[in-house]
């Protein structure tokens, strides 16, 4: 069984940009680029052993699309394409779009992107016990490390581990080394 990975909007937005991306030619799959957010998305294309599946919510995707419009001025067609590519990455590895958990109590300082990300990680549809990795560059979330939601029932064996993109990529490589025949 693979581990669910929830990717935060700021990582998706940063991963939507890649130098020399158009040099990628058939039959290549994206090699590690050294840009951590890009490599996070690349994991769901490369992942040879199927250890990780991408889990997103509509809220995360809406926030990501809203942000690429505001920050990069993506036109409508490319915003639609971003949805298409995220859907492809989700379904390529047996991931899923889940309805976020709505009853979690957050500190008032928690911003919208972090809330959407953690609500997705706590979604009922992921079952219990669960192991979920949250990949985020949000410093407020990163302080959590090993996060447990407040205000909802939560299985004691369920785990949500918050990693930066760099930490996640290092972990993926570690898993790959362990799994290599």
């Amino acid at each position: 069984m693979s581990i669910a990975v929830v990717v935060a909007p700021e990582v998706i937005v940063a991963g939507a940009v890649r130098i020399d991306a158009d040099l990628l030619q058939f039959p290549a799959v994206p090699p590690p680029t050294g840009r951590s957010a890009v490599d996070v998305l690349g994991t769901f294309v490369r992942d040879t052993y199927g250890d990780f599946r991408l889990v997103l919510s509509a809220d995360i995707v809406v926030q990501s699309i809203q942000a690429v419009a505001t920050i990069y001025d993506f036109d409508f067609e490319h915003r639609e394409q971003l949805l298409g590519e995220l859907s492809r990455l989700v379904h390529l590895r047996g991931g899923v779009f889940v309805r976020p958990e709505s009853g979690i109590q957050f500190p008032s300082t928690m911003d919208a992107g972090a809330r959407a990300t953690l609500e997705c990680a706590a979604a009922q549809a992921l079952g219990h016990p669960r192991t979920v990795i949250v990949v985020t560059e949000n410093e407020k979330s990163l302080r959590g490390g090993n996060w447990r939601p407040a205000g909802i029932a939560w299985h004691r064996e369920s785990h949500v581990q918050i990693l930066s993109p760099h930490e996640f990529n290092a972990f993926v490589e570690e898993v790959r080394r362990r799994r290599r025949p």
Partner: protein
Amino acid sequence: MATPLHTVSNTNSMGNVRTAATVGFSIEAGDRERLQHLADVFGGGNRSEFLRKAMSLMERVEAAEQLGKLQAYGQSQADRRGLSPQDIPRLVEEALANPNPRAVAEAKLICAALRAEEAHAEPPMATTRELSDAEVWLREAVTTRPR
């Protein structure tokens, strides 16, 4: 275009119904040996198994190509605006804290179908279940990582 010839249904040991469709396609006579070689190497001699693996690989190639095209567009947009990767987390936080109503409305429009998909998402695993060996190992590895 391949034409389905017939469909076979049976039940596996888990009680799940499997449906396999037989499709016909042609290859050059000289390619038969190549096909069988690849089926031997990648499909344990089973051409259907080889085809499943080949399709999975080609789906990854397609995903890589399409994602690459989108990222190339993204890079051109970022260059036009003089943005660097280090700027992005702060800009995203600002964009979500002070949302542009039109950008929000259009994003919701683009994602309208996702609400239905997430509402009907089947749990990818039983609500109560045993962790697989691999998942236990992965969980221990990730939770004991030095930060």
